[in-house]
């Protein structure tokens, strides 16, 4: 039995976000909607945001996927609410660094997302954790075109 390292991956805070997702749903009149899937595994996510004067006033996610992808999305919505959209994108960059095992800068006010640092030890699962952040990036870039 070798579930010790599993405990590093499936921290209780992650499973809490998975089982009790925050900001789950769709904003009907949002300013930004983005769909993204992970074609290799079938996970899919829809992000809807309400961005006013570059500030993320509200954000919700919907979709289906594994505990890591759904928990990560839930955590992301918490950490970017109320933030400037560019700041939110920078947080995504820091999150990617954390996934790659590089030095990163994630402050406490960003909420629970540092709990996902264990994912970097499971290379096959990094894409699960980054799905929602990639969706955010894709949506903002498409919107600014």
């Amino acid at each position, binding site marked *: *039995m*070798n*579930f010790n*390292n*599993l405990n590093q*991956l*499936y*921290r*209780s805070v*992650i*499973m*809490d976000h998975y*089982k009790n997702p925050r900001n789950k749903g769709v904003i009907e009149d949002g300013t930004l909607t983005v769909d993204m899937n992970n074609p*290799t*595994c*079938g*996970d*899919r996510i829809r992000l809807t945001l309400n961005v006013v004067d570059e500030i993320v006033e509200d954000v919700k996610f919907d979709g*289906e*996927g*594994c*505990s*890591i992808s759904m928990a990560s999305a839930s955590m992301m919505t918490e950490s970017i609410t109320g933030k400037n959209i560019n700041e939110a994108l920078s947080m995504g960059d820091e999150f990617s660094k954390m996934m790659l095992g590089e030095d990163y800068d994630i402050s406490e006010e960003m909420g629970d997302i540092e709990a996902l640092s264990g994912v970097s030890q*499971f290379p*096959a*699962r990094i894409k*699960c954790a980054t799905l929602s952040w990639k969706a955010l990036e894709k949506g903002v870039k498409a919107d600014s075109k």
Partner: protein
Amino acid sequence: MNAKDIRKDFPILDQQVNGNDLIYFDTSATSQTPSPVIDAMTAYYEAYNSNVHRGVHTLGTKATDGYEQARMKVRSFINAKRFEEVIFTRGTTAAINLVARSFGDMVIEPGDEIVVTEMEHHANIVPWQELAKRKQAELKFIPMEADGTLTMENVEATIGENTKIVAITHVSNVLGTINDIRAIAEVAHRNDAYIAVDGAQAVPHMSVDVQDLDVDFYAFSGHKMLGPTGIGVLYGRSELLDDMEPIEYGGDMIDFVDLRTSTWTDLPVKFEAGTPMIAEAIGLAAAIDYIEDIGPEAILEYEQELVNYALERMRSVEGIEIYGPESRAGLITFNLSDVHPHDLATALDSEGVAVRAGHHCAQPLMKWLGVSSTARASFYIYNTTEEIDSFIESLKRTKEFFSYEF
């Protein structure tokens, strides 16, 4: 057949993964490679690596002999009438694409029907979708029963006088369904249609005789039958292949080349432009030897023992859902209560058990099953009932782990 002896030929199986003995249950994705296959390819690179069909020097002749003997080996293995009917390709996907592009473009007219099923791998759906779009043809699906099988009534009802091509898998990579290809070929031919079969999950596990099945095209891959990646086979009736245009042009496949026009050489090389997969063909021939030494019938029988044992044991795990028919090839696709298949696969991997998780390149089938993804355990000659027992214990621990209130 003795799996414990067979395992000695597979050096990769003798290792620990995450501190546990590796249990490899992912043969349907790719099989492991026995030493005789590795040795055959090493011998080629160490002793006679050279290009084929070109030079007159000794090594070139040996390489050409090795490559062409591999073709003869494949011919007799699937009982093709002639060696010209065996085309080496990159794999099953490339073989199906060759048929859809070359044969499909030749015979399909606007309004014709191409018949497939919902259990197909993406490799046997997307090329036909694209062909249908190019030619304004219609794609039709033979409906499946609730257990993921086809009935001959539905086969008869779907294939009609407008059907030009029936493209179907021999064995489903998700459900394990074994389709009655001979009977379906009879219906296709009675309607003046052609039949192309995806045999990737069949050839490694059972005896396949293309003349007995009476199919027009049959495709399979080396890496799922103990051979290397990067090689597969397209079998086609020579009278059809003769009429087909190549889809790749270049060295080896030409007859005469002028500044503005060229002519093609004869089968099978007409469809093998460029330097082919020489070491891989030689490896595939060694894999066929290995399979024939054990015997396709003995392999099928042993896999049936394993899969029936696994089905029975897995059903004892609370909360498990198993997809596919009772009578099946050596694979089991399943879900475990509300544990997502990725989480399940990660947990099993932490105990050294390799299973596949995801949509298995069969998104339409996942939709049909009403799930976004599943886990799959698949078995081969080197697996044992002891491994299945360990796997069951891992499944139970995984379920316990994820049902814990975090």
